[in-house]
């Protein structure tokens, strides 16, 4: 059985698409770990984030970034850390640095991450997202829904956004994003 080592396959196989001058790409290089704040442990967790990652605690609608690591608030007492990580031990690495100051759950496999960019991006988002994405600041984040699927959106640059949705419906999510670009007129 020695040859049966399991190989990972990303939800969309690491797809990259071009629609006109726009691009949709799956980010399969990122790990996601959620950190829940223990009751009464907000300040200690904020401090650990700072010492461990040099990150400030994200506020409800604004993610924070340091180096390759981004922190997004998903609930009043929960954040996501997103960072490049190849092996399935992201949870352990975060836990180690947290040293018990937050409850972690590996969410890498729960989500599909798409990075979308290009000149039609805001127009595509008008058809996909009920939030006012045109006025999002760089780094602004929101948890919302797109075509009946729960989604997370973060503005990375003027014409570049990161979209996250459930990995089991990754195909439907990609289809929704792709259709939105195709329908821009």
């Amino acid at each position: 059985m020695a040859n049966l080592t399991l190989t990972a396959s990303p939800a969309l196989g690491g797809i990259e698409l071009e629609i006109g001058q726009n691009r949709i790409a799956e980010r399969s290089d990122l790990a996601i770990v959620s950190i829940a704040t223990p009751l009464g442990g907000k300040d200690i967790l904020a401090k650990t984030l700072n010492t461990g990652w040099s990150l400030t605690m994200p506020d409800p609608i604004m993610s924070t970034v340091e180096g390759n690591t981004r922190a997004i608030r998903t609930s009043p007492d929960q954040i996501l850390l997103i960072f490049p990580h190849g092996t399935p031990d992201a949870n352990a690495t975060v836990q180690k640095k947290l040293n018990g100051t937050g409850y972690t759950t590996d969410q890498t496999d729960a989500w599909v991450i798409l990075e979308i960019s290009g000149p039609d991006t805001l127009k595509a988002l008008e058809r996909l997202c009920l939030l006012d994405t045109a006025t999002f600041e760089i780094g602004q984040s929101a948890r919302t829904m797109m075509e009946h699927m729960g989604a997370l959106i973060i503005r990375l640059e003027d014409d570049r956004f990161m979209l996250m949705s459930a990995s089991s419906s990754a195909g439907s999510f990609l289809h929704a994003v792709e259709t939105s670009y195709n329908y821009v007129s």
Partner: protein
Amino acid sequence: MIINHPLLGPRDAAEFTVLGDASLLHRPDGMTATMDDMHDYAYLRDNPAGLHRELWYHEQGDRSWLVVTRNTLTHDVENVELARDVARTEGRSK
């Protein structure tokens, strides 16, 4: 319909699910409550024409339960609070 989320700002009601009367916060302790107390809690709701405190859940959002004070006659939303804060203020703890 728009709900002005206390942490996130105005969000479309499509992101929420509604449960109803915020009296559901006041669940009696099953070990001490009488059957009548528990029955009233589970089944009896006010249905006022006018201001109504309702529980809404930001399911397609930050998963907060909210207490929304809404006028059922005009649909005006007069106040939105985190249900957790309201619950604590109204004496709920562990």
